[in-house]
């Protein structure tokens, strides 16, 4: 498999406004390090999961990759060419826009309430492929059929559709323009388990049929486990562990991953012991570059963790961990 997407040392910093700035205009503005030195790849047709708690920078990373935001540093290469040099506001007019598409978290919020399902799916085809008339009709029906939407549903507005149907429209809209990389931002978090299974199967089936690469964002490790070949665990803007999904989830090497895994509610074992995480993450505003971001909440934290930021070190078998004390 060749690399479809290569992300190298990607960073995004946002400046924050502080009080009394007019008194000291020359002082550097504090910055939120939302994404800090992140590198990973996605191969053609591969599914990579991205997990982490809210505020860890998942959404910022996804928006950088989808080219809705401009990175502060680093490079994003898509199918070999550097797409991070184009400004996000111009990217929408490039043909590559159709190649990277996104399915948003809550389909209810992501669909225009005044668009019928047909219009929602037709919109990217009109804008990016300049289709119209009979071709448009065929393409919309094709995308809808791939997602299991029957033709009579296409005339309906979002409020006339069920949650599962709206999720299907969101997916159909994204795949209509035949992307090679699909970014899925918690596509099933708003759905009931009974519908979730159906949507996850649809995604798996679509991938087998049209060979898409997926970047799958979720906080539900049980869902990640079902769909993803590899998983990236993110904490406070940095990737702390990555590797094959079953390896990472069965034998987590980073203490944060271990805490995440032990926090998943599980029907099989009631009332287990788990790794509790005290407190809140360190502030992402101008963090000390030589302190591990997990220091302070980490059950293994030692003096060295405050002095030296651990690097993400690969073990040669596909797994990489950023911790001074990896392993169980």
């Amino acid at each position, binding site marked *: 498999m060749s690399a479809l997407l290569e992300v190298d040392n990607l960073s995004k910093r946002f400046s924050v406004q502080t009080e009394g700035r007019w008194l000291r205009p020359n002082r550097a503005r504090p910055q939120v390090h939302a994404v800090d030195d992140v590198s990973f790849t996605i191969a053609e047709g591969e599914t990579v999961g991205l997990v982490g708690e809210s505020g860890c920078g998942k959404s910022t990373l996804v928006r950088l990759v989808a080219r809705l935001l401009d990175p502060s540093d680093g490079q994003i290469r898509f199918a070999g060419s550097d797409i991070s040099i184009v400004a996000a506001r111009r990217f929408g007019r490039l043909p590559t826009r159709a190649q990277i598409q996104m399915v948003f978290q809550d389909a209810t919020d992501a669909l225009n309430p005044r668009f019928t399902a047909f219009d929602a799916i037709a919109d990217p085809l009109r804008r990016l492929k300049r289709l119209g008339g009979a071709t448009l009709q065929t393409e919309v029906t094709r995308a809808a059929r791939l997602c299991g939407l029957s033709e009579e549903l296409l005339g309906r507005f979002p409020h006339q559709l069920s949650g599962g149907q709206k999720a299907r429209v969101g997916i159909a809209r994204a795949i209509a323009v035949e992307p090679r990389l699909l970014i899925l931002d918690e596509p099933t978090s708003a759905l009931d388990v009974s519908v979730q299974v159906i949507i996850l199967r649809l995604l798996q089936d679509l991938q087998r049929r049209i060979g898409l690469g997926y970047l799958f964002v979720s906080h539900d490790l049980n869902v990640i486990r*079902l769909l993803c070949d590899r998983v990236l665990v993110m904490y406070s803007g940095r990737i702390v562990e990555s590797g094959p999904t079953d390896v990472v989830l069965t034998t987590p090497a980073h203490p944060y991953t271990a805490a995440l895994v032990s926090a998943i509610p599980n029907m099989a074992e*009631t009332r287990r012991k788990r790794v509790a995480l005290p407190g809140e993450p360190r502030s992402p505003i101008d963090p000390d570059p030589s302190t591990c971001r997990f220091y302070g909440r980490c059950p293994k934290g030692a003096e060295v963790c405050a002095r030296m930021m651990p690097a993400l070190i690969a073990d040669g078998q596909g797994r990489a961990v950023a911790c001074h004390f990896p392993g169980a």
Partner: protein
Amino acid sequence: MSAGPLLLSVRELSVEFRTRSGTVRALERVSFDLHRGETLAVVGESGSGKSVTAFAVMGILDPAARITSGRVVFGGLDLLTENARALRDMRGREFAMIFQNPRTALNPIRRIGKQIADVLLRHANVRQSDVAARVIELLATVKIPDPARRARAYPFELSGGMCQRVMIAMALACSPALLIADEPTTGLDVTTQAVIMDLMAELARARGMATILITHDLGVAAEYADRIAVMHAGHMVEVARTEELLARPRHPYTRGLIAATPRPQARLDELYAIPGSLPDLRGDNIPACRYSPRCDQRQMDCNEALPRSMVGVDHLVACRHPL
């Protein structure tokens, strides 16, 4: 856990909503018991009537709702026949509720300390001069670090997990005998969810407080509840002790829900997709067993009156042909 004395008893509760497009029969003959100190989880898909049940018990149903039959007996009083004034006095003191999405449940323009003080002044016999100290004490109970400073914070200054702790502090302000938690951790991270659920369980145990935990996550229910009640389309289809329900579900819907929930051992093609969706609860053509149109065990007599039968110790199921 050994069952304590009976605290809450809901009997044959039916609720309708009048809407422009017809009357929605949201709850039909829902019955369950709750004992002191016990945690009962109510699970089911969205639209199954979990929240309506909770709202009916709290007496905070929407004006469009009408309770057509049933009794809600709490500590010997029928809450449905009590007058509004008596109910207002009981709410907060005897039973309290925490809501999904704490950020919208808190008043965004008042400091959280003030909001907790409101509850104390209205429902507890706390003097104005002691309120500030009690607020800080409550915030410390829910393990908010630096409570004196956080009492002066606005909701937007706190994380989702912290806001939910504030909600718990408000609910516990008067040491209620019953806490209703409506999806308390939906929208929170798994790590935060674990901390909040552990906190609620610990406080409930320490105070002997009964909890009704409404959730769509069977995993959460399995870990924290003594008993689980499964709802589908306004019917309570099965109630049993947690281990029993998960190991030996007797209603086809319960079995379907368990089989649909992602778990470590199962691959995607091994998970069960429950066919169809909730039936339309308007009009008079609702089938007697509201699950029968989706049920793979369906038989000819399933549209006849729905029986409820005891199929084991403390194990109730509403099905003509239990598994």
